[in-house]
Structure formats: structure tokens, C-alpha cells
């Protein structure tokens, strides 16, 4: 039997949660040190990246590995729009920046939107051919496109400043922007997934042919999810650029590595679960920094003094966890379940009646 709350209650509860979280963020903003604050913001940025990739990979079942490409586009577009003309002048020491771009300048909001839109457009162009492929071919092809985007950024020196990248990008990304956009992403994708369109996307994931035979234009819907994912990837890129204040097109910055990190997040959280993506993103951002402790001298169980594990052990641990999850715990933390009011309600009412989890 299905136990549901009225939409009204849910809306109220949601608003309450938003207010509470906002208050907590306000406290964090006031009292946390810059380092913790950085990580806090990084969590939100990763969260947006994970959500957008999960919409594509987890919900729609398109296994795309091209996310970094869209993030890169968003990052560069936004950064080039917020950088002051003088700064651009100063940074472009190999080739002067193209004149039409030199004096283009706008505020953070529009820059981010522009980044998102351009990334979405790129997703549209890339999706057109790539979505005609299937399964692992699609994966490699999308990876390839991301690489192509990166190499172009590397060579279009008069626009991107080539390998020198962009520096002195204003550090606009703060708790409010980061979590504001995270909220927007969450509401947008959440609302999409819970709508008839979301059902269609899941149906495509479950059985392409059957979905087609039920009157769903599979290609159009996949492209849709690809473009929406691309847009928010672009947004996250902008936030990332204004968080790091400098970007460049190298393999380790906005390349396949980043895509793999995001993949780790959504697998950790559970492919196909929105709440999972958030959990995964948070875990990843925290783990990577937290595990530094392993590489520094520490007391094991407060007794045995060690010199810490060799540098690089962090990522070894993380990759080990990743593989372990894939093998033993494929559904990740959340599986495909969501933390929704209905589910919580059901869960509580079960508890109340002391039911075993049924």
C-alpha cells in the first residue's frame, strides 16, 4: 500500500529544510575557516557535476564519459566573461586576445548562464552523432569528444590563452552562489525526473525498444537529458573556475580524470539516485582531503607512531573503495532509491509499527 503526504505538506517541509540549511550555511560562512569553507563549496560544485552526470548516466542510461568537456566549456566561457579587460590584456602573453572578446564583460550570474547555455549547445552538437551509438561505443566516443574539446582549448590560444590558461579569475564562488546553484540544479533535475518526462527517461534506461514501442521518441529524449546535463555541467564549470580562480586545459585539470572522479561520486552514491549523487559528491570531496591524514605522520589508535603512508596512498585507497563498491555493492549507497518525504514518511510509520523493513 502506498503512503503519501499531500503536496502541500511536502512543499512546506521542503521550504523548512531549505531555510534550516540556509541558516546552517550562514553559520558556516561566518565561523568556518577558509580551508573548510573551500571544501564546503567544492562539495556543492561536485554535487552539481554529479547530479548532471547522473541524469545522463544513471537516469537515462546513456553511458557518457564526456562530462569534463562540457565543464571545460562552461568554465572558460564564464571566466572569459568575468575577467576584466585589463587582466585579459595582462594574461595573454603568447598571443593577444581576439578583440571582440577582449572587452566582453558581464556579471557572475550572466557569465554562469552563458557558460551553461554554451555547454548545453555543445552537448546538443555532440549528442547528435554520439547518441546514435550504443553502450560502450558511446562511452568511448563521448570521451573522444571531450578530448577534442580540450585539445581545441589548448590550441585556440587567442581565445583561451592556450596552455597558459586563465588566471586571476575573480573569486565569486561563495557559499551562496555554490549552494544556490546546487538548489536550482536539484529542483530542476528533481522536478524533471519526477515528471512524466522523467518516467520516459527511466523507461529508456530499462528497455530502449519497449520505450520506443510505447510512443517515446527515444533519440529526442536522450538528447534532452544530454543537453540538460550539459547545461548544468557548464554551470558547475563556471562555479569551479570562480572557485579555483585559475583554469587551464591540461589533462589533469578539466580532462578525463575529472570525468572519472565524477563517475566515482555517482557510483559511490548509487547510479540513478539523485540524493545518492549528492552523498557521493560530499563523500568524495571530503575523503580526498581527509585521507591526507594518512600521508602525514599520525598515531595509529593513538598509540603506534607512524610516519604516514607514502604520498599518493589517498587516491589508491579511493580507487580501491571504488572497485570494491562495483564488485560487492553495485547499487552504491542509495541504489536507485531517493530520500523523499514519502519515503521518509513510510519509513517512519514502519518504525512506529515496529515492522521489519518490508
Amino acid at each position, binding site marked *: 500500500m502506498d503512503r503519501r503526504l499531500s503536496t502541500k505538506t511536502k512543499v512546506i517541509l521542503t521550504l523548512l529544510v531549505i531555510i534550516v540549511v540556509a541558516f546552517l550555511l550562514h553559520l558556516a560562512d561566518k565561523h568556518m575557516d577558509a580551508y573548510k569553507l573551500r571544501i564546503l563549496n567544492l562539495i556543492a560544485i561536485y554535487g552539481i557535476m554529479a547530479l548532471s552526470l547522473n541524469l545522463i548516466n544513471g537516469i537515462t542510461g546513456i553511458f557518457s564519459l564526456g562530462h569534463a568537456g562540457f565543464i571545460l566549456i562552461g568554465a572558460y566561457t564564464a571566466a572569459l566573461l568575468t575577467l576584466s579587460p585589463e587582466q585579459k590584456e595582462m594574461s595573454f602573453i603568447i598571443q593577444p586576445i581576439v578583440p571582440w572578446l577582449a572587452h566582453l564583460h558581464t556579471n557572475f550570474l550572466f557569465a554562469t548562464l552563458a557558460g551553461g547555455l554554451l555547454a548545453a549547445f555543445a552537448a546538443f552538437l555532440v549528442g547528435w*552523432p554520439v547518441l546514435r551509438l550504443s553502450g560502450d561505443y558511446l562511452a568511448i566516443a563521448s570521451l573522444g569528444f571531450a578530448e577534442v574539446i580540450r585539445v581545441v582549448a589548448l590550441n585556440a590560444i587567442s581565445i583561451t590563452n592556450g596552455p597558459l590558461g586563465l588566471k586571476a579569475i575573480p573569486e565569486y564562488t561563495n557559499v551562496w552562489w555554490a549552494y544556490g546553484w546546487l538548489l536550482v540544479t536539484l529542483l530542476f533535475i528533481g522536478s524533471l525526473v519526477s515528471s512524466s518526462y522523467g518516467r520516459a527517461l527511466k523507461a529508456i534506461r530499462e528497455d530502449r525498444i519497449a520505450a520506443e514501442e510505447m510512443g517515446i521518441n527515444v533519440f529526442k529524449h536522450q538528447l534532452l537529458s544530454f543537453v540538460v546535463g550539459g547545461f548544468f555541467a557548464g554551470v558547475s564549470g563556471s562555479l569551479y573556475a570562480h572557485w579555483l580562480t585559475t583554469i587551464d586545459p591540461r589533462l589533469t585539470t578539466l580532462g578525463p580524470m575529472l570525468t572519472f572522479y565524477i563517475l566515482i561520486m555517482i557510483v559511490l552514491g548509487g547510479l540513478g539516485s539523485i540524493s545518492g549523487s549528492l552523498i557521493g559528491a560530499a563523500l568524495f570531496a571530503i575523503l580526498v582531503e581527509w585521507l591526507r591524514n594518512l600521508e602525514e605522520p599520525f598515531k595509529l589508535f593513538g598509540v603506534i607512531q607512524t610516519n604516514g603512508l607514502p604520498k599518493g596512498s589517498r587516491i589508491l585507497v579511493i580507487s580501491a573503495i571504488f572497485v570494491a563498491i562495483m564488485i560487492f555493492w553495485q547499487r552504491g549507497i542509495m541504489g536507485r532509491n531517493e530520500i523523499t518525504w514519502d519515503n521518509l514518511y513510510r519509513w517512519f510509520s514502519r518504525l512506529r509499527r515496529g515492522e521489519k523493513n518490508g
Partner: protein
Amino acid sequence: MNITFLVQNTFNGIMLGGLYALIAVGYTMVYGILRLINFAHGDVMMMGVYFAFYFAVLTKSNVVIAFIVAVLGAALLGFLIDNVAYKPLRNAPRISALITAIGVSFFLESFAVVVFGAIPKPFTSIFKSQTLLMKVLNVGGARIPVLTFLVIGITAVIFVFLFLIVYKTKIGMAMRAISADIPTTSLMGVNVNFVISFTFALGSALAAASGLMWSMRYPNVFPYMGFMPGMKAFIAAVFGGIGSIPGAILGGLLLGLIEIFIPAYFQSMMMYRDALAFIILIVILLVKPSGLLGKKAVEKV
């Protein structure tokens, strides 16, 4: 430009292509059986090279022995990877196998960073004499490293060797049967899991072998050395028709030649070399997904 230039580039291309082909063969075999892009293939290759390097350095032993050890070690590694990481996922959706493969690749790389260190190791330093490696023949003005012929020779040998295994042995027959359709084969009382593990071991041994050749030409051993060659080799395999061994070799050679010739004659393309490979991949996938020599499958409804 002149004829020497052409000849020179042709041999450069064959050299590079031969190495791609060598790696691609291992890729294509595993894919043929499991329909799994073994992302970790390039990293197994990397591990193989490290095995050889450290064995030679630590035991001061002859390079040949080191090579044999490396190949066997890689085979064992492949066997382990399959049993630990992939076997539990045989019946899981193919995508989760692919994700796992990425994870394994990721793991091997970080493992190498921690255990072998991230500083590049000079592979050729394990050779008593460099003459073979540095020897260069002069063919009508074009200069061709002896290594080129060695690579081509070994590729040929391996091809024959594989051909014998796949078409002349019992296990080879089993492999082909499985690549056709797993359930039926297992019904026929073939130990599918063993055959798959065997394929993995064989593929990994090949990866190591190609890795050793690769490092003789490019003697710079580091934890991430497997990534790009692996990618390129995969592209080569798809190019030639994934699942087909002759296809892998053809694809490898073609990719090598393209990567040399395009920048040679269109110098503006030089910066886009890697992108080039991916563009080829995408075009091939869209125009002829089955590749040059592959056979296409029909979807059952």
C-alpha cells in the same frame, strides 16, 4: 616533398602502427569474448613493463629472462583481475563491467604511483648494450631503426601464434564458441569461466609483450604510460573491427600511418594529433560501427 621524406614517414608510421597493433590485439581478444572494453589493458601493459624493469634491476639478470618473467607476471595479473574484478559481474549489465574496468585501471595506476614511484624510470638502462636499440639502417636516405623490423617481426610472430591458438586448439575453439554465444557454449559443457580467464591471461601477456616492445622504442616508464597507448590501441581495434584479430593489426598499422602522415603533410594538424585519432574513432563508429573487418550483429526484438 621528396621521396625520402615519404619513405621515412612510411617507416615511422609502420613503427608506431606496429606497436599500436600489438596492443590492440590484446584488446580485441578480450572484447571478442566478453564484449568488455578492458580499460585496464593499457595499465596491465604498464605493470608488465615495471615487472621486467624491476626484475632486471633487482636480480641483475638477463633481459630475456626479465621479459619472460614480465609476460608471465602480466598473464597472472590478468587472470587475477578477471577473477577478482570481472567474474562477479558476468551477469551484471555490461556498463557496470565497464565502470569496474575503469576502476581497475584507476587502481593499477595509483598502485604503481605508490609502489613503483611516480618518477619515470629509464627502461633501456636494463640493457647491457644499447646498440640494438640505437642501431639505424640507412635505406635510400631514409633512416630506419632496426627496432622497426623487430616490432614488425614480433607482431607477425604473435599473429601466427594467436592464429594457431584460436583456430587450431581446443581452447581456441571454445573461445570462438563463447564469442558467438555464451549460454549455449556452457550448455555444451565447456567451462566458460576458465576459457574467459584464459583469454584474459593471454590478452594480458600480449599487453606485456607489446609494452616491452613499446618501452624499447620509448624507454620512459611511468605509471600513466598505459593510458594514451591503450586508448589509441582501442581506437585501432575499433577501426579494424573490434573482435577481429586481423582487424586489430590492420587498424593499428593504419592509425600509426595516419598519425604520422597527416601532421607530416598538413603541419597545422600537428597539434591536433591525438584529437585526430578520436575523430577517426567517431567517424568509423558512425559510418561503419563494425569496423573495417568486423562482422555486424543484428539486434533481436
